[in-house]
């Protein structure tokens, strides 16, 4: 009987020591991490590498252009520099929203739902909010939209869209429902994404909000009416002031 007690005690002692050893080994720090942390890293490495490849392509193009520029200096006939200045100006003025643009695209109308409310349902379910417009614009950009306007206001880099009571403020101007969103780009792709199973258009319709989208061969979008001037942000490397 005494022997049995001793052996039981010995077993318990060993197990107890094992636990302490295990607790000490980790030193209070994490010794394991989740698989997600590793896959996140892998995904980001792959995407950084893809970006680097893309930048290297741009470097090659810039080098070619530089060679052409050098050539241009001794050649009166051709004028690569001049045509490139014009191209760059066109590109950046479209991007900055400084000129009217036209092209194929889509026209979207979003309006508050007209159906009756269910018993006890919140009216907010049927109303269009700023986040809805933001999400539609985001989805359009994701589908490669090149120029976007909401109720005639060009969406530029600095554009914010905010609900203020019954109205929505875009670029500092006030608008009310319905919202007409125009986007120039690949119409089929934009419609497909908006109306896919998980598309934002589909989910708005499920809420009961009115959402229509039509492909148009030619859409015209007006220039941004405001002016953008940086007060705080300065170009890096230019320390004149």
């Amino acid at each position, binding site marked *: *009987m005494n022997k*049995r*007690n001793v052996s*039981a005690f010995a077993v*318990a002692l060993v*197990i107890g020591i094992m*636990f302490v050893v295990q607790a000490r080994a980790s030193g209070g720090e994490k010794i*394991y*991490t*989740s*698989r*997600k942390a*590793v896959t*996140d*890293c892998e*995904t*980001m*490495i*792959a995407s*950084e*590498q893809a*970006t*680097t490849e*893309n*930048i290297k392509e741009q470097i090659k193009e810039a080098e070619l252009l*530089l060679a052409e520029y050098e050539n241009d*200096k001794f050649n009166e006939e051709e004028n690569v*520099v001049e045509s490139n*200045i014009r191209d760059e*100006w066109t590109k*950046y*003025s479209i*991007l*900055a929203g400084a*000129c*009217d*643009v*036209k092209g*194929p*695209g889509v026209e979207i109308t979003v309006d508050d739902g007209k159906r009756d409310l269910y018993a006890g349902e919140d009216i907010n379910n049927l109303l269009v909010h700023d*986040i809805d417009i*933001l*999400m539609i614009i*985001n*989805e359009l*950009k*994701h589908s490669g939209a*090149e120029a976007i306007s909401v109720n005639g206001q060009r969406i*530029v*880099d600095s554009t*914010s869209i*905010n609900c203020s009571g019954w109205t929505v403020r875009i670029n500092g101007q006030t608008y009310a429902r319905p919202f007409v969103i125009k986007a120039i*780009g690949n119409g089929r792709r934009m419609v497909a994404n908006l109306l896919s199973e998980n598309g934002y258009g589909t989910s708005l319709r499920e809420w009961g909000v009115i959402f229509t989208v039509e492909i148009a061969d030619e859409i015209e979008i007006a220039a941004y009416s405001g002016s953008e001037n*940086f*007060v*705080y*942000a300065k*170009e*890096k*490397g230019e320390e004149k002031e």
Partner: protein
Amino acid sequence: MKKYIGIAVSGLLAIAVGMVLAVQMSSTAGSDQGGLVPYSKLKDYEVALSEARNEKEDALEELTLLQERLQTIEREMSAEDAVLDGLLSETEKYRLITGAVDVHGPGIIITIKDPVVTDEYQDDISIITYHYEELLSLVNKLKEAGAEAISINDHRIVQTTEISLAGQNININGSATAPPYYIKAIGNPTTMENAISIRGGIVETLKKNYNLTVDISTDEDLVIPRYNGVITFRYAKPVTESEEE
């Protein structure tokens, strides 16, 4: 009587051991068993990631230098042409406001971290990733408060930027990102900070509704990197009626 004491003691011991085992088993049950990775392995990946980032930055610097050389030639060769010279200075202005160059200035840095994991919900689920529309909303609020340049994890937010969910990660400008998120914004620091931290505002929503850790710090001189993608317009053409050409 002596007989029973021995049995009682070993019985108690068995119960104690059983409880310890049970506690340990239940504490590992929540995490995906077999899916755990040694922390040291993650360190290797982190090193590889920072190497990939450095390589990208080097390439970008090379590109920026080349573009500067091109611009110098452009300026030299159009010095006598007033029209071209005008186009050049307009392009330069547009490049600044559309995010084509690195900028610096005063601003704020907002850090968003996923909630600290408790045993049951392992960090395989990222709260902020699944609520990426909150990032969209935060960017919108910062713009409303007058932010001039914004970046999320050093990806510059430009006119064409989308923030979308791609698998387990948020894609910004087509690049995959992961938490924690660092949002930098150049502008009036006080206005921006106060605008987003009003009661019931975006920061409170992030903290209360999603249990995220949000920190705001101001910086006298923030640097926000340029957009590094290619911009091409395949569909949109400028309307040229009374305009040039």
